[in-house]
Structures are given as C-alpha cells and as structure tokens.
C-alpha cells in the first residue's frame, strides 16, 4: 500500500492537487494581508468569498461567460470592500465585529439567493485547464505547476505583485506607514483613510476573486460553499507574518497536506475512523510548523485601530 504512495506519479498528482487547493486560500489571504498591513483586520473574508463565489457561479450559469463571471465576482468584491471601508474607516466601527457582520450577511444572503434564484444544484462547466506551452511539457514539473486553470496562475503571479506593491512602491510605503504609525503618516501628508479604503477594496476584491476561483474550480454553488476557507485564509495571514511569500508558504502547506491526506485515503492506506484523525493534519501541521519556525514578527502596530484625526 505504502509502496503505491511512494511513486513519482502519485507525488506529482498530489502536489498538483495541493496547488489547486491552495489557490482560494492564497487569493483571499494575500488580499487580507494587504489590508492588515494598512492596519485593517477583516474577519469578513469568508462572507465576501461566498458572495464572490455565488456571483461568479450565477453569472456563468446565466451568461456562460467565464470572463464576465470573474469580472462580476471582482465587482461585487469591490462593492463589499467599499461597504466595509465605509463602516470601518469612515464610520470607524470596530473591525472585528463589522467583519463578522459581513460574514453573517454573506453566509445568509448567498444561501437565500441560491435558494430563490437557482434552487436545485445546477452544474456549470469547470474552468478549463490551460497548459503553458513548453513549460507544461517538462516532466513532473510541468504537471505540477503548469497544467492548471488561469486563476491558479493568477493567484501565484499575484504573490510577487503584492510583494512589489508593498515593498517597492510609494503606495506600499504609505500602506506600511499607515499600518504602523498612522499619526505620523498623517503628519507627512499621507491620507490614512484613503489608503486604508484602497487596501480594503483590494482585499475584498481578492476575496471575491478567491470565491470565484473556488466556484469555477468545483463547478457548482451550494449553501456555505466555502466551508470555513475564508477563516483559514485569515489564519494563514498570521502564519505568513503579513509577507506575501510567507502567506504563499502557508497556503501551500495547508493545500499540500490536505491533498496528501486525500491521496492516502484514495490509496486505501488510511481507512475507517483513522481517516478522521488524519483530516486534522493540515490544522495541526500549520500550528506545529509555526512553533518550530517561530518567526516572531510583530503585527502592524496600528492593526484594528481606526484613525481619527480629531483625536490624535
């Protein structure tokens, strides 16, 4: 049995599967990381993912256009971002509870819409795989990395983009300044609230995209489709210590361990109740790895603190 597991083809398939599973986490967590770098915690990722997932699913179902589906998901994500920005930046509401409000809204509202607008589960075509010319022909590597749908590539391409934006652009400098010392940033003429509004919209748009990636990957929608993925994404932001590459490592760890568990079950190596114990593995390993690696990087100092110029 175990000999079945230690074969190249199984390894390759498992890693490819891990990358697919990591994609929604990665998209959502990258967006959340950008938001948190500017000092805004958004616990509503799960809700926005659900809204994005439903929007993409419904658009695809009605128009059969994938491009439109993704655009609509991005759009509703951005709108949710504007709402969240209005509530937490302009109205300066507590971020933790506002996010949970967004989560509850997304959970209930998409369930309601699905029941009333779709009703019975109707499949949509899954997003087609795009094999990257030449690269996808490389043995093993090609199958692991270069035979996925476009949103998978996009998610991983956004890692360097996010890194560049945060570390190498003026906007990124503003984000970090606003997240660490908003008062000082304000003195220097950086608009704290505008910067945060931007990062929130970016974060929510990414969450919407993560939802779309999920819905288009599984080709269906149902109540609570995300099943906790948005919360795991938030956890991964902490795992990655707010760094895009760290976040990506976390998403890959979680995704690949999940995929390995599935493979072990598929091959019959783990059976019965023990497979329940094994299903804990991604969660346990995430904690263990973090303890072992133990990078004590401080959170953005102004995380969750609204900025009120009158009070500073």
């Amino acid at each position, binding site marked *: 049995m175990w000999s079945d597991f230690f074969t190249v083809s199984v390894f390759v398939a498992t890693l490819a599967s891990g990358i697919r599973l990591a994609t929604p986490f990665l998209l959502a967590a990258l967006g959340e990381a950008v938001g948190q770098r500017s000092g805004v915690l958004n616990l509503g990722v799960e809700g926005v993912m659900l809204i994005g997932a439903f929007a993409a699913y419904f658009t695809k179902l009605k128009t059969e256009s994938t491009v439109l589906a993704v655009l609509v998901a991005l759009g509703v994500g951005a709108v949710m971002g504007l709402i969240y920005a209005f509530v937490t930046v302009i109205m300066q509401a*507590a971020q933790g509870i506002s996010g949970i409000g967004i989560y509850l809204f997304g959970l209930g*509202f998409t369930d309601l819409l699905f029941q009333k607008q779709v009703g019975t589960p109707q499949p949509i075509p899954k997003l087609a795989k795009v094999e990257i010319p030449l690269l996808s022909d490389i043995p093993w590597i090609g199958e692991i990395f270069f035979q996925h749908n476009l949103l998978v590539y996009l998610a991983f391409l956004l890692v360097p983009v996010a890194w560049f934006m945060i570390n190498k652009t003026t906007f990124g400098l503003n984000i970090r300044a606003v997240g660490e010392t908003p008062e000082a940033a304000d003195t220097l003429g950086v608009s704290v609230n505008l910067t945060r509004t931007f990062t929130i919209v970016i974060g929510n748009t990414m969450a919407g995209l993560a939802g779309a990636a999920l819905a288009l990957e599984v080709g269906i929608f149902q109540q609570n489709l995300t099943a906790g993925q948005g919360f795991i994404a938030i956890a991964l932001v902490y795992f990655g210590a707010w760094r895009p590459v760290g976040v990506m490592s976390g998403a890959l760890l979680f995704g690949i361990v999940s995929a390995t568990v599935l493979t072990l079950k598929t091959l019959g190596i783990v059976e019965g109740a023990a497979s329940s114990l094994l299903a804990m593995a991604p969660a346990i390993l995430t904690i263990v790895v973090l303890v072992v690696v133990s990078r004590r990087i401080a959170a953005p100092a102004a995380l969750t603190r609204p900025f009120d110029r009158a009070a500073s």
Partner: protein
Amino acid sequence: MTTTEAVHEDAPSDPDSGGVGGSFAFAAVKPLAGLVVPVCAVAAALAVGSVMLLALGTNPLRGYAALIDGAFGGWDALADTSIKAMPLLLVGVGICIAFRAGVINIGGEGQIIAGAILSTSLALTIPDTPRIILVPLVLIAGAVGGGIWGTIPGALKAYAGVSEILATIMMNIIAAQFLSFLLQDLLIEEGAIKIQQTERVDANSHLPLLPGGTRLHLGVLIAILVAVLGYLLLFRTSLGMRLRSVGHNPHASKYAGMAVNRSIVQAMAFSGACAGVAGAILVFGSESHRLIGEGGASAFTQSAGFNGIVAALFGALHPLWTIPASFFFGGMLTGGIQLQQELQVPAALIVALNGVVVIFVVGSLKLRTRVNRWVERHEGAPVQPHKDVVDGGVMSGVE
C-alpha cells in the same frame, strides 16, 4: 444595582488608548438622545430586511410579526429564545474575558465541542452517580474541556508567539474532526444503523427543567450566573484588573511588573471554560440528551462560537450587557424558524439580517458620538474631544 456599577466600571480610564474595552465606549449623553442612533440603525437594518422580504413576495409586516411572535410571543417562544441565547451568552462571556485581556478568541466552536466531549464522556463513564453530584460534575467537566481547548492557543500565543487567531481557527478544525472520529469509533452508539451520536446520557445527568411547563432548563440560569461571575471576575477581582490592564496596554503592564504571558493563558482558559460549559449544556439540556455530530459539528454547536462573538461585542464586551444582547440574537434565530414555517421564508434570511443589523449598529456608533457632542454643545456642556474616540480595536498590538 450591579448594573449601575457595571456601567460605571466599564468606562476606560484612558479613552485614547487602544484598549479592547473601548470598542463600544461612547461619550455620555441623555439616554434618549443616545438611543436615537442605534434605534435608527436597527430600524434601517430592518428596512433592508423588509426589502428582502418584499423581494421574496412576503409582506414585511407579516414577516416581522411572525419573527417577533416566534421569538417572544408567549412563554414557549420565550423559553425557546432563552435556550437559544444560552450558548451565545456563555460564549459571549468568554469572549468578554478574552477580548478584554487583548486576546481574540475565535475558537468558541472548538471549545464548545471540547467541553461537550469531556462532559459526555464523563457522564457515560459514571452513569449511576446521584443527580445532585452528577449535574455539577458534568458542568465542571465541560468547563475543564473547554478550558483546556482554550489554554492551548493561549499558551501558544504567550510562549511560542503563535497568533491566537491562527491557533483558535485551527483548533476549531481539530476539535470538529476529533468529534467526528469519536463518533465513528469510541463514543458511537451501538445500533442497527450507525448514526454519529453517543448513547443517551443517564437521566441523572440531565439538567432539570424549570417549573412552568416550558422547555426552559437549568442551563439558562447557569448561563446568567456565569455572566454575573464573569462580571465579578473582570471588575471585582485583582485578577480581572490584571487581565484588563494587560489587554489595555500590555507594555505598560509588563513594566508595572504584571505577568503578561500568564494573563494571556488565564484569559484564554477562562474564555474556553465558558464556551465549554455551553458545550456541556448543549448536551445535557438538549431535547435528545446526547452528543450528536451527524451532519457536521455545527449541527451540534449551532455556530454559537461565532454568534457568541457578535453577542459579546453587542454587549459592549461587558458580561452583563451581553445578557440582553444574547437574548436579542437568540430571539432572531428562534423567530427565524417561525418565519420559515409560517411564511416559507428561508431561515437564511435571518442569518443575513443578523449580519445587516451588526453592520448598521456598529457602523452607526460614530454617528452616535456626533449626536452626543451636538447635544452636549447645545446644552452648554464642555466638549470633550477625547470622549469621541470610538476605539475600533478588538485587540491591540499584543504580539
């Protein structure tokens, strides 16, 4: 009287700091003016709900009548609402303790499950114990189970630098899977068709029903008692003062010689214990008197681990204010069932509506302070800019 003192106690001494307790602190105003904004916010949220109901082809008035009737219309409905509010309140009290100590506990789900597992295991192990002993014992077991499940992320945060947000989310997953494992193996009921549930626990462990002929059981009173104890702990003991101080300003507390790390672990232990008690009550006060995990862990926890956070924050992270807040959300959830049965409106609407209520009410707090300022100004009271600070944090940079 405690309420009055509580209100007084709750005021952050330094509104400018990043204390967690400040999230709902407003400047003082005449009660009437102070209520205008939140009532308007709830009304606005209900207006959004009306639009949704209209879109579903339901008369909003009939919808809300059904909702309110289902939640508060008669003793049975009030009992159901109270039972629904129970886990929200217990988790909420735990949230008050953790958040005030600067620790974000999103692990209520896992802590409920851990409390339920330990208490159920105990009750199944010693079934023939007299009721007067067994009932307190299972509640304590619940507290211990939840406490352990809370202590782990607390210790991870304090001594290994693992964010409690990450740890509690992961601990939820672990608890849910562990429950599923136990209900396939060690704890599953013997039966012709295997169902993921334990044996019925012994009658001696059942929480007694309160007189009055409703489903109301002792668990609801225990929840309220825990809320009072939580209040006393936070505001009447030196331990509570230390916890709040650590949450308020960890660095200053450290310089003042307080054991910050130990406080974090203690806060999470208490927080988890409260949720664990909810887990025990969900078993021993339930209709079924057993732990049922069929269909997923949230079928058992009722998502109280999350909804309790909402209740606590609505209650201004104050254990006593969390009581009415829990009953409000408990009522929404109970009324939602009636709404569905009577008008065939999906209960999902209520989940969405709860979200809208949360967003509108927390979103309007700033507006409220502006109204307050306006009132103060027009009454000639000195304007105190510092009081405007509505701290958004549910945590400060404790890391």
